[in-house]
């Protein structure tokens, strides 16, 4: 297991000498700590359920066919409970992702928990850890922990799924999407690590002393990531259906995640809004309005999806472009305000 990223200490910033800032940075920290606490409770619940599933599988010596035939109802319930716990935990993280991923001193947790790629996927954002399973196997750089646990729970990746078993959950004679049992070792290891890192994130959030630079950087880094989120939505089951080969984002539509992320960024904006108003009140009002409109735009698309509309990939692409254009316009305005306030945006 990797050593945990240490909680941040004092933050060097360009604005530390600003005498008294009208920005309400404490509100951002209070929000982050509150969400981190909720996340920790939710991941502990998931860990408990993963442990129970693991213990049940251990009884049959991880013979999943035997497990299925002997305890089918219990196993189905356990998996469904674990899925529900995951679906409770994941949005809690999304609701603070805007702050975590956008703050350089916390951003590593975003890679570990929610955004990091696997070794196979490669690129610049590969997770910094290997996953050691209870049976001693090691999965090198498996991808982010929400993704690993989601793939295991919903059976979207064979390596993380129990082998040698046809798990027809609803007994309709067909094995449909998500009718699969997780590999208990993978699920337990991922849930354990998820809970551990959630605890570390909580500790880091408690130690974090937000600065104006942190807040502006979070806004400028995270607001314009819309196109990436929409692209993962476009390629997910929610748009492509069975043609999708995406392993994660199968349980919750990415559109819900985007709204959660934007909500956290609205909290950040509210924190720095008094400061922006000191240089340009109308610009601040416009940023606030456009952030709300962007969130409403995504919510509207999500509502349509929930009412049964299936968007085509091209429509999803167009919507993503529009969200990105709006986000880029907002980011540009925020960057102008940061420059006027002489606040450094961290790289």
């Amino acid at each position, binding site marked *: 297991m990797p050593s945990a990223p240490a909680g941040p200490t004092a933050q*060097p910033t360009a604005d530390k000498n600003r005498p008294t800032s009208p920005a309400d940075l404490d509100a951002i920290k209070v929000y982050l700590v509150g969400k981190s606490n909720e996340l920790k409770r939710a991941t502990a619940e998931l860990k408990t359920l993963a442990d129970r599933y693991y213990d049940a599988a251990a009884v049959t010596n991880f013979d999943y066919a035997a497990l299925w035939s002997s305890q089918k109802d219990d196993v189905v319930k356990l998996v469904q409970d674990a899925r529900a716990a995951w679906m409770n935990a994941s949005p809690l993280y999304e609701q603070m992702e805007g702050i975590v991923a956008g703050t350089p001193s916390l951003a590593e947790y975003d890679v570990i928990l929610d955004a990091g790629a696997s070794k196979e996927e490669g690129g610049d954002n*590969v997770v*910094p850890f290997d996953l050691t399973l209870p049976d001693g196997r090691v999965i090198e750089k498996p991808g982010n922990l929400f993704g690993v646990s989601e793939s295991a729970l919903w059976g979207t990746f064979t390596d993380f799924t129990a082998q040698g078993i046809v798990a027809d959950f609803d007994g309709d004679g067909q094995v449909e999407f998500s009718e699969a049992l997780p590999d208990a070792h993978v699920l337990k290891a991922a849930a354990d690590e998820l809970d551990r890192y959630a605890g570390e994130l909580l500790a880091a959030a408690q130690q974090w002393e937000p600065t104006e630079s942190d807040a502006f950087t979070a806004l400028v880094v995270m607001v314009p990531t819309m196109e990436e989120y929409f692209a993962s939505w476009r390629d997910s089951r929610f748009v492509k259906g069975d043609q999708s080969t995406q392993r994660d984002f199968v349980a919750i539509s990415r559109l819900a995640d985007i709204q959660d992320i934007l909500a956290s960024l609205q909290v950040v904006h509210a924190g720095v809004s008094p400061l922006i108003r000191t240089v340009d009140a109308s610009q601040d009002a416009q940023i606030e309005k456009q952030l709300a409109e962007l969130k409403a735009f995504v919510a509207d698309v999500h509502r349509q999806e929930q009412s049964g509309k299936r968007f085509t990939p091209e429509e999803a692409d167009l919507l993503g472009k529009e969200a990105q254009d709006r986000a880029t*316009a907002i980011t540009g305005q925020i*960057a102008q305000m940061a*420059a006027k306030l002489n606040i450094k945006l961290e790289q």
Partner: protein
Amino acid sequence: MVLVAAATRASSTHAAPPAPGEAAQTLRASLVQVQIALRNNPRAAQAALTQAREAYAALADPLRHYAPEVDETVRTALTDAEAAFRRGEATAFAVARARAWTSLLHGSYLVVTGAVGAGDIATAYNWLPVREFRRATRFARPNADATLALDALARGATEPRAALQAIHADLLDTYQARLNAALADLATADARRFPARRAESAALAKGYFAILAGAFEEQRGAAQRAQADELLEALLASALTGDGVPAAMAQVTDSLRGFRAAPLSEAEQARRAGQMMRYLRLVPIEYGRGVRDGRVTIDLEIREAATFYEGAQAAFDDLRNIFEARDSNKAAQAAAIFDLLKRDITDAGEQRGVAAPEDVRARSDRLIALLAELIPAEWSTQNSAADFDVIATALDQMEQAVARGEYGLAESARVEAYAVLESGPEAKITAFAPQFKNTIEGYFWFGHGDHKGLAALIQQKAPLSEVRMTRRLLDAELALAQEALKGSDSPVAIATNSGIIVLREGLEAVLILAALVASFRTAANRHLRRPMWIGALLALIASLLTWLALRGTLSLFASLGEKLEAIVSLVAIGVLLLITNWFFHDVYWKGWMANFHKQKQHIIKGATGQFAGLLLLGFASVYREGFETALFLQALTLEGGAAVVLVGAAAGMVLVVAIGLAIFALQARLPIMKMLIVTGMLIGFVLVVMVGNTAHTMQVVGWIPLTPIRWLTFPHWFGLWFGTYPTAEGLALQFAAAAFVIGSYFLAQHLHKRRLRLTTHSA
């Protein structure tokens, strides 16, 4: 639709017309809403279209005034959009929408620049928000130059011409980035077979180019501009039908190759040239580390090679126009070698085939030689700004390696960054911004104050967050140093720089040499001057050879600087301790007592050792500073040329020799007793300073621990000249050295008195 509803609410509740920025966003968003609702919800689409027209009505007046032709284009585009909507043609609507939007952006550009030119700051201020921005990424932030320039103009802090220049540069640079992004989107949409998105992207590209066309024509002439217009029109036609898009794209890309809408300033061109050459030199180094026996052994090294390659390629693209104007043939050859290198690196990255490191090196060398011929002479001088850029890139790679848990590679990237610092800006920092030198070194190595250095963190496999923390502190110091170095590129500044370095580095050596040589003035020990002179001369020759050897290999040796200095300093201290002891117990004794006959035997017995010791002292005293001086002077030579550096160094050397002669003359005039006391004090002083500096160097490279004394601060010059830094180890060692010197003196006196008593007693 939410947007339509929100916009309607906004228009009904606000009596005042919306600001241009807000109206423009409403126009753009409404047109997108029409596109989305076109097929399934014609009513909502119609409402959004009306909304778009209303939004434009609020914008039209200033456009008509400053850019009437653009006003006409927007109106035509909106009419076309409406017609496409009536026909239900999504693709045609997407094209008209893109044209309306980019025309509005063009109009805003003309309004802002026209208003600034006309002194109408209020209109410029209102219209500047009608713009797009470069897309922010994790590594790049949107530009704010135009906003700041307009602010400065409003405050009277800048001239309209300078403000206009900044506005042009910011906006043109932004729209060129958007043009490139539109072309990339077009390729993606074509690959995904999204017809409306494909046509929209082509229309956006055409619209963005219209904003840049003036700059294009200015740089390339009307004929090429007309050709580019035709190619973009052809690209749009291809995008509408879906036929031959890649070929049409390739033609457009070719016609735009090397074009830079916001021309780089002279200083920026030199900086980009510096980056290009530095990045290119690093490509074969990283590639060679990642490949062994025909296969990739370390992925990350190949990725680092790719990063450096991309940096060099981007700089080449920015400068290609200039290169082509100088020698189009060579520019084409360079471009071809860039392509070959790219293939080598891409193939290795994808494990498709691995070129031999020697081949990659040969290609890089050939490219560097070719580019050196293309680069104007005035750019060839080293540029500190480019050094700082390369340092930042190498440190980024260090962070990426730490993120992956690859600490060995992280250390290699850190050393790479340090080597660039040491072989470039450090010489200037030493002379012009010395207050940053120790802090920067500390953060690079084993720490400064309460913060651990990068070397220590990597050695301990510290988590990324800690590494990032130190990196941010280092970045802040580097930025301050870079700011402090501005204006230090002139020949006078570089010559002064060289002189100061020679003076400061040479002073310690000359102090000790002059003092000792002056003390060897009796017939009995005058011969001892010779080994010291020989040693000093040998060190000067060695320093000169080092200077020559460092030519072209500066960065390879730069990282050794501190370690070599520490080793030679230790030798110098060792010899100096012996000399101190010998001085108080031997020369002092003999000179004071004039007891030559009694000691003669002893001196003869120890003659070989004394000769070697003094020779070594002469050598080590000079060479311990000689290596670093050679390194710094070589770095300055790259920046200012050998002649300028040599003039400065010679001036510094004259001062050093003059000080040496002055000390020598002063001491020669003193009565022997006073001379010996002064010499003893000088040796003691030099020893204490040398111990302090050596302790500091050893702390920098992590050979001894570093315990900061928080309550104690010294001004930076104090550390620089006296080797005294607020660390427990450094101060303790300096104290021990001082105690040794004073102890030696009192011990010698004690022995001397005892001997006197014994002599008197026996007499």
